[in-house]
């Protein structure tokens, strides 16, 4: 009876958003007469920081300072449509919607600036809130002046809207097959877990998680880290404690109250070592992929492999509660059937190779 240390790892891939169409996000952007930017986006910020990230994307795509941009997603009635905040799609799909809308606004700004400056639009660029003639930076006009001219002189509301949507795929009529790129952008992650397993009580303590996430482009690294840290604790709960129906499908011992559902608390916090890898996606806004829902996927399998490393048994159902760990240890110690020692372990058994896929012997027809 002792405590055993173990280390395990798991890797995951995560497709971003729902794929193969039907998953739109929309955005509409307008310029106030003073050049400030109002963004109406359907994506809802539930605390993950999509408002911040979308503001950054719009500011960069337009070429204006960050604090000129106001996000308005206060209600879903007047906002543009967004399928929802799920599937790690906020930055990738919602971000693409605001980026594309911002690019259209940028075109209108340059068109009006071109009239004001009497310079061809192709010779203009936007930098830090000013439209500047390429190669002649003294010839410029501020975006507030452009917006004012549009409003009061040209009678135009500078605006742009866009929908980010993966298009329908063509169906081949002769075969009925569909040629679809399987995913828009796949994010990858790896997690290494260091655990201590008590073989007397079955208790598992996670001491450290090393987590590596490929997010395409970290538009806001602090928010990315926030998702990784939050996901780590959720993954830890999924791996060790969180269980709505411990004897599913039986409702027995189902948690009926808050305290019966064991989410990790502050004392369960392991040492976290987070690494962000940038592996830009061609489809994402500024190369971004995703870091939302994927952040709690890698910890449970990493913990399971670490338990195997520590005590040599596989816990095949999550969470790895003390009860399940002890059951697995017991089964390893006492492999019995009908009171006899019969050993079958699918992880160590070598199955007989069949010449015809297990169909039976040749020439045995009666």
């Amino acid at each position: 009876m002792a405590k055993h240390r173990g280390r395990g790892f798991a890797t995951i891939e995560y497709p971003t958003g729902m794929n193969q169409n039907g998953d739109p996000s929309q955005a509409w952007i307008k310029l106030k007469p003073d050049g400030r930017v109002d963004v109406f986006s359907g994506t809802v910020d539930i605390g993950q920081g999509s408002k911040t990230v979308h503001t950054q994307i719009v500011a960069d795509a337009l070429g204006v300072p960050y604090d000129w941009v106001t996000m308005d997603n206060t209600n879903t009635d007047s906002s543009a449509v967004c399928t929802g905040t799920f599937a790690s799609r906020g930055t990738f799909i919602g971000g693409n919607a605001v980026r594309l809308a911002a690019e259209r606004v940028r075109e209108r700004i340059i068109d009006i600036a071109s009239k004001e400056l009497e310079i061809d639009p192709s010779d203009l660029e936007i930098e830090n809130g000013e439209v500047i003639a390429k190669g002649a930076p003294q010839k410029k006009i501020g975006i507030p002046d452009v917006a004012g001219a549009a409003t009061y002189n040209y009678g135009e509301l500078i605006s742009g809207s866009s929908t980010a949507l993966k298009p329908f795929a063509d169906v081949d009529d002769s075969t009925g097959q569909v040629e679809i790129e399987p995913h828009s952008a796949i994010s990858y992650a790896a997690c290494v877990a260091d655990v201590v397993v008590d073989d007397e009580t079955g208790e598992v303590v996670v001491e450290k998680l090393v987590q590596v996430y490929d997010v395409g482009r970290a538009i806001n690294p602090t928010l990315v880290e926030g998702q990784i840290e939050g996901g780590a604790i959720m993954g830890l709960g999924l791996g060790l404690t969180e269980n709505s129906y411990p004897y599913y499908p039986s409702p027995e011992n189902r948690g009926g109250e808050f305290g019966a559902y064991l989410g990790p608390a502050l004392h369960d916090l392991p040492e976290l070592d987070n690494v962000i890898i940038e592996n830009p996606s061609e489809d994402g806004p500024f190369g971004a992929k995703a870091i939302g829902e994927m952040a709690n996927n890698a910890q449970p399998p990493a913990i399971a492999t670490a338990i195997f490393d520590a005590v040599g048994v596989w816990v095949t159902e999550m969470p790895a509660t003390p009860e399940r760990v002890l059951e697995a240890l017991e089964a390893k110690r006492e492999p019995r059937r009908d009171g006899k020692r019969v050993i079958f372990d699918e992880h160590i058994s070598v199955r007989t190779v069949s010449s015809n896929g297990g169909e039976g012997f040749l020439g045995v027809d009666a």
Partner: protein
Amino acid sequence: MKLTVNGIEQEIFSPPLTPLLHVLRDELDVTSPKAGCQQGGCGTCTVLIDGEPRRSCLTAVAAVDGSEITTLEGLGEPEQLSPVQAAFHERYAAQCGFCTPGMVVAATALIERKGGPVERDEVLEALGGHYCRCTGYVKIVDAVMAASRGQTGAREDEPETGEEAPVMIPGSPA
């Protein structure tokens, strides 16, 4: 019954066994203490009763008659955050924000009690009964430790913002 809530004396008309949480939220419209589990398990209803952090969902209002109650609203203003609030804001210690009122109130009491820099173990002890689903606690612990060391305000990695230029409306037809 009387309570002094965030420095303002209030006459209380709710029945005496009403939880303090509901007196604050429903009678006085002080809504920062959140009704989370309402079993004393999650900590987001925490308020300071005479300076001590207490679960307002488990406290009958009659039991604290005449006390001074401090909630998040009593700590700072949007334009003048308290040190703990500023540290939470600057260090991204809130995501959905539901646990934040209780965390900030309890951390404020911890720092006041200690009167100087608090260590990680002390934060774990003081906030151990506060449940957070989003952040993984990391940035919350960092923020409390930073607040106790006075490390708030503009940080070095943030670009300095210049003087705000007066907003002009250009191109007016006048």
